[in-house]
């Protein structure tokens, strides 16, 4: 790729980027969120068309203006969000878009899929419907789909974000098998240890600019971080000791079922104390979302209790079985930053004021809305968290990810909660914004709030939190002191109960 530039409106997502990929190598594309990795790769796979620049394959200039062109050139991309049709089988998804001659023969295709699977070590049932599959199975379908098309260049966009460590290991093994077969792979990630583990070479992007590349064997975490952020970032997060911790939230034997009757949480018990950050670790889908939503009254509870100690009135009450409105009416001040910001936490088409109202619109009497107070809060959040927006009425949907999160966290903190729950609060944010969020959470903790932090990056969990609750397959597999434990111990706990839990 030479001199690739892509603009979105006035934003330059990629500026004159040069990137080389050799045959039979695994290249890591590293960069902070918003540095233009995915945009760049989308141009290789035909989703976007570059405004300027030229792509060469084997020194031949090629034009890639559609995903089909990309396939024709042997390029296949596995997107972060799987592009699969839910009501189709694996086979149907894999042959989708192919224009082979002759009749559509699903049996024949199924056979070839099994061959490919055996060659590289996948496990796949060609006739299984996608909506019955686990995340890692879906990813397998995506990869096989690309291989089925005879791709020589595979691009994987943050493939490990949704996988358990075991699944990640299996994926890396498959990647090496493909490499041996002469295929070239690009893996987009921002997990440094994975970069070091799997790739031969690392290319780094920063703010849409190509910074350079290094051979993996010549790199370490510190040097890569430096290149990525442009300056050395202290990995140290300020962590004061909890002050006067008292039980704030006691969860006992909490069990929940999903719509299909599958147990999502089983006999969860723990206590969250005031003035501490309780981290919740676990691979994606271990029940983190269900736990937070159950506490907030958004998920039906089958069994168990959630006892809340009200610091203002010194009374206790059970939250189980209450809906969010009843919890709010009971005077329980709980804040919840959900992982799906625009889909659950905010109203995309409204401005900051309208979104502040989401928590407070019931507070005044009468059938009409009070807009003054939310507007004041919006202005406060705007100033204090340095949200970049033209006005408090600018739709939050059109803000950048970091600013959206600031609005959401700002609103939740503005409620002056006694319990603050955050789910993946820094996912998708750049390092600076992430630190802003860490500092905000720590400040809340020092105010005596019980903070529950669900995270995915173990390094952060270990440095930010006071205690860690580890979930595995919907059960508590351990509670450890974050100051004394290490990654290995937590990593083991994350996979202990039941091991690989591919629940349907």
């Amino acid at each position: 790729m030479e001199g690739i530039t892509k603009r979105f409106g006035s934003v330059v997502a990629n500026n004159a980027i040069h990137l080389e990929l050799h045959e039979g190598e695994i290249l890591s594309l590293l960069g902070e969120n918003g540095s233009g990795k995915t945009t760049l790769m989308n141009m290789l796979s035909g989703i976007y068309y570059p405004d300027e620049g030229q792509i060469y394959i084997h020194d031949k200039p090629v034009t890639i203006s559609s995903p089909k062109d990309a396939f024709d050139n042997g390029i296949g991309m596995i997107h972060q969000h799987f592009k699969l049709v839910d009501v189709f089988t694996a086979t149907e998804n894999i042959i989708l878009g192919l224009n082979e001659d002759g009749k559509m023969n699903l049996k024949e295709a199924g056979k070839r899929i099994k061959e490919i699977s055996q060659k590289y070590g996948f496990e796949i049932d060609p006739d299984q419907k996608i909506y019955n599959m686990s995340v890692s199975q879906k990813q397998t379908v995506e990869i096989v789909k690309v291989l089925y098309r005879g791709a020589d260049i595979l691009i994987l966009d943050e493939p490990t974000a949704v996988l358990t460590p075991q699944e990640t290991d299996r994926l890396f093994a498959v990647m090496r098998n493909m490499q041996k077969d002469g295929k070239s792979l690009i893996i987009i990630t921002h997990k440094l240890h994975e970069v070091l583990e799997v790739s031969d070479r690392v290319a780094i992007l920063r703010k849409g600019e190509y910074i350079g590349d290094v051979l993996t064997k010549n790199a370490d975490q510190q040097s890569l971080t430096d290149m990525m952020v442009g300056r050395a970032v202290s990995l140290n997060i300020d962590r004061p000791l909890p002050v006067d911790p008292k039980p704030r939230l006691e969860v006992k034997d909490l069990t929940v079922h999903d719509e299909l009757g599958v147990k999502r949480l089983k006999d969860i018990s723990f206590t969250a104390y005031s003035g501490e950050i309780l981290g919740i670790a676990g691979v994606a889908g271990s029940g983190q979302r269900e736990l937070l939503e159950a506490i907030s009254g958004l998920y039906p509870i089958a069994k168990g209790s959630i006892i809340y100690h009200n610091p203002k009135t010194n009374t206790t009450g059970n939250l189980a079985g209450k809906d969010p409105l009843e919890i709010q009416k009971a005077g329980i001040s709980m804040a919840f930053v959900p992982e799906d910001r625009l889909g659950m936490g905010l109203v995309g088409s409204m401005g900051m004021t309208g979104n502040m109202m989401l928590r407070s619109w019931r507070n005044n009497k009468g059938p009409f809305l009070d807009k003054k107070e939310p507007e004041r809060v919006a202005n406060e959040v705007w100033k204090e968290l340095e949200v970049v927006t033209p006005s408090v009425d600018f739709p939050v949907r059109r803000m950048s990810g970091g600013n959206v999160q600031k609005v959401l966290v700002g609103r939740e903190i503005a409620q002056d909660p006694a319990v603050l729950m955050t789910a993946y609060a820094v996912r998708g944010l750049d390092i600076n914004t992430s630190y802003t969020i860490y500092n905000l959470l720590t400040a809340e903790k020092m105010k005596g709030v019980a903070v529950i932090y669900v995270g995915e990056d173990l390094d952060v969990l270990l440095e930010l939190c006071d205690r860690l609750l580890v979930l595995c397959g919907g059960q508590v597999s351990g509670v450890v002191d974050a100051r004394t434990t290490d990654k290995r111990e937590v990593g083991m706990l994350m996979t202990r109960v039941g091991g690989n839990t591919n629940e349907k």
Partner: protein
Amino acid sequence: MKNKAMFHIVKREALPWYQAWLIRGAAILLALVACSLVTVIVTGLNPLSLYKTMLYGTFGTNRKTWVLFQKLAILLGISLAVTPAFKMRFWNIGAEGQVMAGGLACAAVMITLGETIKSNAVMLLLMLVVSVAAGALWGFLPAFFKAHWNTNETLFTLMMNYIAIQLAAYFIIIWEVPKGSGKIGMINQSTRMGWLPYLGGKQYAIIILIVAILTILLHIYLKYSKHGYEIAVVGESERTARYAGIKVEWVIIRTMVLSGALCGFMGMLLVGGTDHTLSTDIVGGRGFTAVMVSWLAKFNPIVMVLTSFLLVFMQLGAKEVATNFYLNESFSEILTGIILFFIIGCEFFITYKIQFAKSGKEA
């Protein structure tokens, strides 16, 4: 290999409101030109005298102007009625049936109790309650199934339309006067029981007044009330609404009951206020037209006054042209269709812009 796209479609930054309205105005102008072209081809009339005829058809006489405003009020009223549901992204295309249900209930009261009840006020009150309830029921059913089982509301409300129409057809035959005519005729013509009162001697004044008040009330309801806020949040994302402690099922049902009830109310205005009879085409597709009026106005009740005026003006104007030139009355539907196509199409140019590819670089 495929040839490279000649242009790209890019989402615009927000357009200033006056520019957006400029585009819409231009579209309407273009549509009018297209309409006159069609008319000229069909009638050989010159465009200027065409619009003169249309103006005459709408404002030419006192009577015509009253009819214009009455039609405007009814269409606007139905459009207002469907709007809360649309703001919630509940695709209710069942206004036709909801109005019909209201009108049917209203006629039922007028016919069956016309002799028994002696006070017109009691009669009107009863008509109001019954037609609002009937419309509300027609709105409640699809909402109930949507809220609990996510049943597709567009298809549901569509079916409900024809159930209401067939039900009306059934009762029309039962009540027909004289037997075998297939028509009911003026209900309570001698006693005028259940007829809406004339304001200042004008038959339609009361309807126009009621709908004007309704417009303002609905504007306030949607923009400044807590219900309006709930509707907006539910329309954006159900999960966000649940997160904010909004009972989504309840809001969906409440809003659709409101929409249905308002439709039922419009049915009462139609039967009690203008037609004084019931027929299967009393709504005459206005339930569908209302969907377009509401959407074209971006669900803003005040703007709806303009969009419904435009459509009613075209309809009545085209009708006048049709009568003058011995054309079929369906001519107005053709012109309405053309206008709609232009306005529907122009929204694209408000949201997006087209960038032509710079040539040269890619070779």
